[in-house]
Structure formats: structure tokens, C-alpha cells
């Protein structure tokens, strides 16, 4: 399996490099680097947005969550799909009509001033770095689990460097096309696996349902259709609401997704891209549900994890004398032991069980490709926040040559790429899965209120935007620092996701800040913003 995986991954990387070579000539200006000259079509952009959402977190993470926790895992899928309606109704078209390169452009369109842009750029950087570290640490452990010869550190460095090559040379155009191809491959892998799951149950959804209702967990029968398996305990319900709120409003503040609306020619195509994305993402999440239930019942939760065979297994047994007898029995029975369960491996192990080594290799290769494609988009989002918002707009106040700015943009991508490689290597042994939920919570408490209020509320002021974004940012970071993610049983704040407190706080502070200090200059600009946002007059081309 190892060789086949590496060969398929190498083919994908080769394809990405060919695209990069083709795109390189068209990415020599900022316009090309950040927005692919706004020549991506609505359909293409829809596939790319779907690709951003079909991340490793979705493909491996959600499949695993559903395999282990059933319906509670499906909740993520629902939240992420519904979230796009908010984006569609409130943001897609106005963003295309009023933005140039970054989310901060839209927020600062009428809230002119250095403070607003600086804070918006910082929130973008923080959100993308959290998201990126989660993806890259995930990549490290995943590659290490699938191809044991490659250590986590090497895996992170390899993914980071390949990604940097095509971001630096191919810019947004290469990033978009790599994302589109990956989305198609991932969808193909998911369809193949889902068909195999159905075939296993003789194409009867009832048989799948019955199996899911009595999944075997450590000898107990568990009903995967019931809620409360993941979010249990007295505060489980509140944590569930908190996460739900972050998921449904977070997308409206995620820079790497919103940035894609700057790559299409018109507001109409921005809308069309959300339409395609929602169709594809919804279909994909239905497939992950089938795969998750399949993995939970066919592979069995007990077997989902890193499989150790032969000498590796024996070495592990020797190191754990207290459970040696039990492990020995397991080894004789299965030919392998599972020292540690890892829900991220549900999809690859399902492929192994149903499709054999070649399909497993394909699924593993697609999983690498996914991580590669998603971190590329994140890198461009972070680089543009630094180069366009901080350097071009704040430090140079719009002065300087095109050459200088494209140089700064590339340097920023390089720095962001290296910083996240170093951070991810440093954090590789921590469980950073909560960082994705945190990125959504920060996005929903900072960018989302600032964007929505700036586009819809005439009185919304600079003071309001600054108060809102700072309150949302600080509260979500502080609450996570004192949450069970860091403090375990001694947590001061009992919820794992801060959204339930930080999102209302972000909106409230934005409203209070506005009511305290009037801002006639920003109010005067509202007419222009409204006309532009709703008609497309004067939109950047």
C-alpha cells in the first residue's frame, strides 16, 4: 500500500506542478496573484469553494466522528452546509461588488482608518494560522499513520514545501485549479467508498440503518442514530449549541473562503459559485455519513486506529507488560493490534476492508492532496492580509511600485508558510483538532459581525467595528485558554468551544461601540457602499 500511495500522491503533485508552470506566467502581478485576474467562472469557483470545505477535517474527521459518535458527528455537516445560506444571502454578492483583494477591504470600505484595517488584518492572520496549524498537524500524523516510514516532522515539512512552491509561482490561479482537481478526486473516492458500503449491505438502506442502530463498541451495543454520544454530560448540550453557533456563523468570517468571491468576474458568478458549492458540499456530507456509518459498523470502532503488525506489534507488547496477555490474544486473533484508536483513520481503514490495497492507497493519496490544497488557499489569505492590508495600505499608504508589492506578497506567503511549518512541527504531538472549531468561533465573533454590520447598518462606526472585533477576538482566545482544551478538569470556563459567549459578545460590543460614538464620515459613505453592493456599479475588475 505504501508504494502505491506514494506513487499516486507523486502523480497529484506532478499535476499540481504542471498547473503551476501554466499559471506562473499569469501570476506576475498582484491582481493575478491574489485574484487570478477575476477570470475564474462561477462553476469553477463553486468547485474550489467546495474543495476548501472538503478538507481533511471533513473527509477524515467527520467520517471518523460519525463512525464513533453517529448523529452527533453529522451535526457538523448540517452546520457547515446551512452556514452557506448566510454567506449567500448576506455576503457573496456585496463582497464581490465592494472588495478588492481582502476581507479587510470590505470592512474598511467605508470605515476608513488605520485601526479598523489593522485589526481586521490581524483577525484574518490569526484565523488562518489556527486553521492552517490544525490542517498541517493533522497532515503530519495522518501521513505518519498511513506511511509509517515518513515521520510526522518530515510529513509536515514536505507538505509545507510543496504547497509553497505552487503558491509562490502559481498564485491564486494554480491554487484554485489544484483545489478543483482535488475536489473531483475526493468526491470520486467518496462515491466509490459509499457504493462499496451499500454493496456490503446488499444495497438496502434498512440493513445499514439496522447495523448502525446496534454498532458494537467494546462489547456494548451502541445506537449511532441517537444523539448524546459525543456531547454528553451536564454541559454537553451547551457545548453542542456553542459549536453549532460557531459553525453556522463562522463561514461568514473565514478569509480563505470569502477571498474566493474576489476571483470571479461578477456578482452573479459569485452567487452561482455558492450554488454549486452548496450542491457539492451537501452531496459530499451525505456521502461522509454513509462512509462514517459504514466504518463504524463494518470496520468496527475497536479496529479503527493504527494497526501494528509483526515486529512492531511484538515490540509494543513487550513495552506494555500489564496488558500483554490481552494484546497477545488480539494479535493471534487478528494478526495485528490496535494500540490506540484514531477516528481519523476510519475512511482509509474502510477502504482497506472493502476495496483492497489499491483503493486504500487512492484514499490515502487523496487525503494528502486535500491537505495540500487547503493549506495553499489559507497561505494566500494570510499573505494578502499581510502584504495588502498591513504593508500596502498601512505602511506604504498605497504608494510603491507593482514590483515592490508583488515581492512583498510572495515574501509574506513564504514567511507564513515557514511559520506554520515551524509551529506545526512544534505542536505535532498535541491534539489540535479543537483549533478548527476555534478558528470558526473567532471568525464568527470578529469578521462576521464587522462584515455584516458594515454592509447593512448605516450608523455602524469605526469605534463599533474596533470594539466588536477586539471583544470577539479577546474573549474567544481567553475563553479557550481557560477551557478544558488547555486546563482539563480544572477548567474555569466549562465549554470547549467559546462561540456561545464570544459571538454574542462580538456583536454586542460592535453595537454598543457604535451607539457610544457617532461617526458621520463613515455614515456619509454608506450610500455609496449600498449602491455599489447592490448594483455592482464601480466594482473592481
Amino acid at each position, binding site marked *: 500500500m505504501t508504494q502505491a500511495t506514494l506513487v499516486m500522491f507523486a502523480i497529484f503533485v506532478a499535476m499540481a506542478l504542471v498547473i503551476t508552470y501554466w499559471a506562473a506566467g499569469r501570476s506576475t502581478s498582484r491582481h493575478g496573484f491574489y485574484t487570478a485576474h477575476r477570470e475564474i467562472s462561477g462553476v469553477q469557483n463553486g468547485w474550489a469553494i467546495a474543495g476548501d470545505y472538503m478538507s481533511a477535517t471533513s473527509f477524515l474527521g467527520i467520517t471518523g466522528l460519525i463512525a464513533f459518535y453517529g448523529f452527533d458527528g453529522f*451535526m457538523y455537516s448540517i452546520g457547515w*452546509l446551512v452556514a452557506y445560506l448566510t454567506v449567500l444571502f448576506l455576503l457573496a454578492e456585496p463582497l464581490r461588488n465592494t472588495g478588492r483583494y481582502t476581507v479587510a477591504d470590505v470592512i474598511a470600505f467605508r470605515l476608513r482608518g488605520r485601526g479598523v484595517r489593522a485589526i481586521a488584518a490581524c483577525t484574518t492572520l490569526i484565523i488562518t494560522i489556527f486553521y492552517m496549524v490544525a490542517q498541517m498537524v493533522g497532515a503530519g500524523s495522518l501521513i505518519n499513520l498511513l506511511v509509517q516510514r515518513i515521520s510526522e516532522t518530515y510529513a509536515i515539512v514536505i507538505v509545507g514545501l510543496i504547497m509553497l512552491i505552487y503558491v509562490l509561482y502559481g498564485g491564486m490561479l494554480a491554487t484554485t485549479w489544484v483545489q478543483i482537481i482535488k475536489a473531483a478526486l475526493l468526491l470520486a473516492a467518496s462515491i466509490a467508498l459509499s457504493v462499496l458500503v451499500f454493496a456490503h449491505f446488499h444495497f438496502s438502506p*434498512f440493513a445499514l440503518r439496522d447495523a448502525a442502530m446496534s454498532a458494537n463498541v467494546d462489547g456494548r451495543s451502541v445506537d449511532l442514530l441517537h444523539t448524546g454520544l459525543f456531547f454528553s454530560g451536564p454541559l454537553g448540550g451547551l457545548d*453542542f*449549541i456553542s459549536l453549532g453557533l460557531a459553525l453556522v456563523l463562522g463561514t461568514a468570517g473565514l478569509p480563505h473562503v470569502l477571498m474566493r468571491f474576489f476571483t470571479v468576474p461578477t456578482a452573479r458568478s459569485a452567487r452561482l459559485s455558492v450554488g454549486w458549492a452548496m450542491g457539492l458540499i451537501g452531496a459530499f456530507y451525505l456521502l461522509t455519513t454513509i462512509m462514517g456509518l459504514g466504518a463504524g459498523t463494518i470496520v468496527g470502532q475497536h479496529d479503527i486506529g493504527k494497526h501494528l503488525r509483526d515486529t512492531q506489534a511484538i515490540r509494543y507488547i513487550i513495552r506494555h507488560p500489564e496488558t500483554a496477555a490481552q494484546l497477545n490474544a488480539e494479535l493471534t486473533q487478528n494478526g495485528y493490534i490496535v494500540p490506540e484508536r484514531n477516528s481519523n483513520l476510519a475512511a482509509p481503514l474502510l477502504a482497506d476492508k472493502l476495496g483492497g490495497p489499491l483503493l486504500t492507497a487512492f484514499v490515502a493519496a487523496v487525503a494528502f492532496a486535500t491537505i495540500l490544497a487547503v493549506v495553499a488557499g489559507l497561505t494566500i489569505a494570510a499573505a494578502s492580509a499581510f502584504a495588502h492590508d498591513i504593508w500596502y495600505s498601512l505602511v506604504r499608504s498605497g504608494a510603491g511600485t507593482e514590483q515592490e508589492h508583488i515581492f512583498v506578497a510572495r515574501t509574506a506567503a513564504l514567511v507564513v508558510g515557514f511559520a506554520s511549518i515551524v509551529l506545526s512541527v512544534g505542536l505535532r504531538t498535541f491534539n489540535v483538532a479543537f483549533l478548527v472549531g476555534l478558528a470558526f468561533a473567532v471568525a464568527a465573533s470578529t469578521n462576521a459581525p464587522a462584515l455584516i454590520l458594515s454592509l447593512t447598518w448605516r450608523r455602524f462606526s469605526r469605534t463599533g467595528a474596533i470594539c466588536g472585533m477586539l471583544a470577539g477576538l479577546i474573549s474567544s482566545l481567553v475563553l479557550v485558554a481557560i477551557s478544558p482544551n488547555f486546563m482539563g478538569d480544572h477548567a474555569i470556563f466549562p465549554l470547549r468551544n467559546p462561540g456561545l459567549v464570544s459571538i454574542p459578545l462580538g456583536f454586542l460590543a460592535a453595537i454598543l461601540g457604535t451607539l457610544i460614538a457617532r461617526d458621520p464620515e463613515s455614515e456619509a459613505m454608506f450610500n455609496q457602499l*449600498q*449602491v455599489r453592493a447592490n*448594483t455592482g*456599479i464601480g466594482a473592481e475588475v
Partner: protein
Amino acid sequence: MQHHHLTASEWDTLAKDPEFLALLRARRRFIVPSTIFVLVFYLALPVGVAFAPELMNQPVLESLTIANLYGFTLFLVAWVLLAVYMREARSFDDRAQALVDRLTAELAK
């Protein structure tokens, strides 16, 4: 079409244009209730699961629970609302285009 040269008072005139205001109202009439409906309808699921887990785990149809069916309904509702908005938005586009055409003609004079 580039209109970077419009002055502040010209933007204000445009913003008070009756046709533009009618377009804004039509968009709002769709977007505001739909957004509120989606958020409330969605958040009812985690709230229900949090405060009435027994009720939500009640099997109702072919052993599927209320939560299961509610979840799938949310999927369908999302797709239906998407389709409805895509259709509505085409008329918004036409109205916006007509407005832009009229403005271009007026500016050319």
C-alpha cells in the same frame, strides 16, 4: 463599466433613486426573513438536543429519530432555499442592470 469618478453627491442621488430603493426593499423582503428563518430553524436542533434529548431521540419513522429526520430536513430546506434564492436573484439582477443602463445613458448626456 467604471464609475470611480462619481462624486459623493452623485452617489447620494443614486441611493435615493426610487427604482434603486424599490430594488433594495425587494431584496430585503427576501433576505431578512430567510436569514432569520434559517438561523432559528438550524439552532433549534442543538437547542432541542441539549434540553430535550429524550424527545429528540424518540423514534418516529422506520426507527429514525426526531433528531435524525430534523437533520435531514435541514439539508433539504437548505437546498430548497438555495434554489428559491437563485431564482429570485435573477429578477434582482435584471432590475440592477436596468438601473445601471439608465444611469449610463443619463451620464452620457
